[in-house]
């Protein structure tokens, strides 16, 4: 039988695999001519990432070498581009002339998509597709201090970024959506991936909008729409691929989004076949290697007259970046008819999410530990009914049908040299000897070994070691977790937010293993406060995590109306302010006007939709919110002091005004009330305030930790200071140390009872340097928060009104 002339256009991974199958099935049946525009033969493109990072060489990723081509009598025409196909005469056209075929196979793959940004043609702007791109990147990275910007935070872009980073470049990844690899990962896994990449020194900017690429003769910088300038010597565009179909289109073959083929990989011409990234089958395009290999198998059978049909299968994704272990498969979008099973192990940076629908697994996202990925993938592909193993499903195949593991037995089984505390390098053996030496509580262990004293994530493990070692003598500490969403206490959460530098709510939920998707009404306001107190510049206050009063900046009453209270600095007002208050009360039909214990005037019974208008009017008269609703600075009560009083020793009113102007707008763990009395007769009742200052001839007595609410408590003396400046400084430092350390909803007196007044004195009074550092941090936070919240809300009056009013229509 005469050998069939087979011409193959493109030496990629699909055509390479096809030829293998073909020569296995029918050796000597085909006379193959292999064209490739790239001046080389088949190699494993998937392994370009290790070549870029330096973990492999080009030689190691060649799949078919000269001997193989020679042994199978393949005529190699590498570096020769096909210019056209003449289907009538069954020849392909190239620079060397015509080449006839009996059967033609188009495997032209895809082209990288280049965003036509200004400057995209500058030298130094490349894509990441073949060995030439890879070599160009390696070459640029050889320059010391070279910087790269990778546009696109998908699979390819991140592999490029990781490789360039391993070559020593400074790398920034720009991604236009909220989290990396959004097509393969959900937000939680995207967060972990970003964290791991940042830990390797890769700078990640999400929501990035690139404006232009600039440079004089060579790329020099990338500009973002927000004005950010990123100097660089290399720009890698990895924003996606487009099937390479021009040749097929010019030849008159049916082309949709790519070359249309049937299940036998045949195009609209019975003698022309296509496979790989350049084809479209049943409306689907292909970018991953698994379906390409399936196509190669089917086409080899078709060409050797055996029956087979290509089908679209579920796909799984893995990222080939050493140390970033991720896996995703199936459909993991949320939906009403779907259920999630989520597992988080913050200590190991592990996140697993399974998506179930009607007792079947339909999607899986895993990060950090992907060992069971292929097992889950199998369950998805086979549409296995998982109702029987649902309880233990997320633990993987090892746990199916087995007993539930006892965490204590696992700890008991650990060898003595097993590391328990990673921060301090403390092994189980050291903790056990400390326990045998008399350390019988977590606090003792921390004091003697430092274990769990740094980041605190191993606290549970240390407690388990205690439990295992002490047996019945061990009493689990009774500290209460924040809420049902977590096992951590407020104190643990505060410590971890600082030590692990958690700067967003999703970061807290993930890193600390929250059991709910986004917390609850108990933890959200607390976490929101901790984050804004610790990271005033980085964290953005979340109104939706605040109690209604702090969101609407007014105090909700039992009938759903609100009370409005403008600030009266130090309890001082003017006839103009009083008129404006009276006018507002008239205009908005305020039923009750009350003088409060904090020396200001409360307008009660205001409708929600009237709030913006009332605020606008009060703002116009120069008044701002009195924060009478906030866990923050409320009021500074004063007496008239030396201005009028025959007993006054200092300007108590003046100091009160200065304190209020200094502290207003600041958020605190609970409300904070101040008072300044001009003499020990104490008309301002300063001895039952959170901070109360009594003026005396020699200066100022600063007391803290008073209360006159559910508990009645007298202030304790923090210090005596000679000047007003120092009184202001000590007060700001005290408020800041309270903000940084107290549990949410602990008034200062409760918090001081826990840490001790001496602890506070050491840091606020004795240690001057620390006092100034506290004040500096307070001042920094106040640059963000010392603002009237009413003014911007008054401008958004529509958001306070109902979304729609259907009462009129319903009446018709």
């Amino acid at each position, binding site marked *: 039988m005469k050998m069939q002339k087979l011409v193959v256009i493109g030496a990629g991974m699909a055509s390479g695999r096809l030829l293998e199958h073909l020569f296995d099935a029918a050796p000597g049946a085909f006379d193959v001519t292999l064209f490739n525009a790239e001046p080389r033969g088949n190699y494993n493109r998937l392994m370009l990432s290790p070549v870029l990072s330096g973990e492999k060489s080009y030689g190691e990723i060649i799949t078919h070498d000269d001997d193989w081509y020679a042994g199978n009598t393949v005529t190699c025409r590498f570096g020769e581009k096909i210019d056209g196909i003449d289907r009538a005469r069954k020849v392909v056209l190239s620079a060397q002339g015509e080449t006839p075929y009996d059967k033609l196979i188009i495997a032209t793959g895809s082209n990288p998509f280049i965003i036509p940004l200004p400057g995209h043609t500058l030298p130094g702007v490349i894509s990441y597709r073949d060995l030439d791109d890879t070599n160009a990147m390696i070459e640029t990275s050889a320059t010391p201090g070279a910087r790269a910007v990778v546009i696109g935070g998908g699979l390819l872009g991140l592999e490029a970024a990781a490789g360039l980073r391993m070559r020593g470049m400074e790398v920034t990844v720009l991604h236009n959506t909220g989290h990396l690899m959004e097509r393969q990962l959900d937000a939680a896994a995207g967060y972990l991936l970003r964290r791991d990449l940042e830990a390797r020194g890769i700078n990640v900017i999400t929501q990035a909008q690139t404006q232009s690429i600039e440079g004089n003769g060579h790329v020099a910088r990338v500009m973002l729409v927000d004005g950010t300038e990123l100097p660089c010597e290399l720009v890698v565009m990895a924003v996606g691929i487009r099937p390479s179909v021009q040749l097929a289109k010019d030849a008159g073959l049916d082309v949709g989004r790519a070359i249309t083929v049937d299940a036998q990989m045949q195009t609209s011409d019975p003698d022309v076949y296509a496979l790989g990234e350049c084809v479209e089958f049943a409306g689907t395009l292909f970018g991953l290697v698994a379906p390409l290999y399936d196509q190669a198998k089917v086409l080899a059978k078709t060409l050797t007259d055996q029956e087979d049909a290509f089908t679209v299968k579920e796909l799984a994704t893995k990222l080939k970046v050493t140390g970033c272990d991720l896996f995703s498969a199936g459909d993991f979008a*949320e939906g*009403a008819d779907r259920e999630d099973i989520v597992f988080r192990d913050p200590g190991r940076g592990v996140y697993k999410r399974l998506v179930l629908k009607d007792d079947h697994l339909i999607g899986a996202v895993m990060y950090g530990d992907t060992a069971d990925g292929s097992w889950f993938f199998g369950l998805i592909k086979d549409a296995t009914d998982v109702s029987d193993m649902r309880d233990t499903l997320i633990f993987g195949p090892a746990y199916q049908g087995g007993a539930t593991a006892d965490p204590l037995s696992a700890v008991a089984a650990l060898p003595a040299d097993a590391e328990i505390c990673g921060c301090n390098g403390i092994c189980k053996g050291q903790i056990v000897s400390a326990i045998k030496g008399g350390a019988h509580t977590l606090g003792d262990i921390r004091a003697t070994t430092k274990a769990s004293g740094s980041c605190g994530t191993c606290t549970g493990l240390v407690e388990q070691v205690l439990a295992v070692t002490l047996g019945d003598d061990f009493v689990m500490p009774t500290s209460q977790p924040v809420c049902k969403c977590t096992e951590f206490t407020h104190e643990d959460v505060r410590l971890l937010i600082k030590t692990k530098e958690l700067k967003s709510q999703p970061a807290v939920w993930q890193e600390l293993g929250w059991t*709910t*998707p*986004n*917390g*609850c*009404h108990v933890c*959200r*306001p607390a976490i929101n406060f901790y984050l804004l107190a610790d990271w005033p510049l980085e964290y953005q206050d979340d*109104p*939706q*995590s*605040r*109690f*209604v009063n702090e*969101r*609407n900046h007014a105090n*909700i009453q*039992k*009938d*759903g109306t609100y009370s409005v209270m403008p600030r009266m600095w130090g309890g001082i007002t003017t006839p103009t302010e009083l008129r404006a208050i009276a006018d507002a009360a008239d205009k908005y039909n305020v039923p009750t006007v009350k003088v409060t214990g904090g020396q200001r005037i409360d307008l009660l019974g205001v409708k929600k939709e009237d709030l913006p208008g009332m605020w606008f009017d009060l703002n116009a008269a120069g008044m701002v919110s009195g924060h009478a609703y906030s866990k923050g600075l409320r009021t500074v009560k004063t007496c008239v002091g030396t201005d009028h009083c025959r007993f006054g020793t200092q300007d108590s009113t003046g100091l009160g005004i200065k304190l209020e102007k200094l502290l207003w707008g600041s958020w605190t763990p609970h409300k904070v009330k101040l008072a300044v009395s001009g003499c020990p007769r104490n008309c301002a009742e300063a001895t039952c305030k959170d901070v109360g200052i009594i003026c005396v001839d020699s200066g100022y007595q600063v007391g803290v930790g008073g209360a006159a609410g559910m508990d009645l408590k007298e202030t304790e003396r923090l210090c005596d200071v000679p000047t007003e400046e120092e009184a202001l400084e000590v007060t700001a430092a005290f408020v800041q140390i309270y903000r940084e350390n107290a549990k949410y909803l602990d008034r200062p007196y409760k918090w001081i009872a826990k840490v001790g007044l001496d602890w506070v004195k050491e840091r606020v009074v004795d240690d001057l340097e620390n006092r100034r550092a506290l004040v500096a941090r307070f001042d920094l936070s106040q640059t963000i928060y010392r603002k009237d919240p009413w003014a911007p809300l008054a401008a958004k009056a529509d*958001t306070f009104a*109902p*979304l*729609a*009013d*259907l*009462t009129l*229509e*319903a*009446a018709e």
Partner: protein
Amino acid sequence: MNWIDIGALDDIPLRGARVVKTQLGCVALFRTDTDRVFAVSDTCPHKGGPLSEGIVHGNKVTCPLHNWVFSLETGQAQGADSGSITTYPVQVAAGRILLDATTLKKRSAA
């Protein structure tokens, strides 16, 4: 069913709510973290608290007055509290929120 356009999805803050006035009281429209929208009675059966002012977490809301928690999917009070709120058909199409006017009228007739 008689779907009427109430407003844009983006008119409701993420993890927030807005109300729609109807003949017999307010209906609260909630938008969850995952952009699901629920329409339920705005009035807590306990002491009449405005649920639209509560903190939205998962597919639940906590009443701002006394911390009763309701499932937005079923309207049932969660935990130890017992009671329920009416839920209404709602859908989101092309970024617009649609309420069923027929159901809302039934409510006013009842």
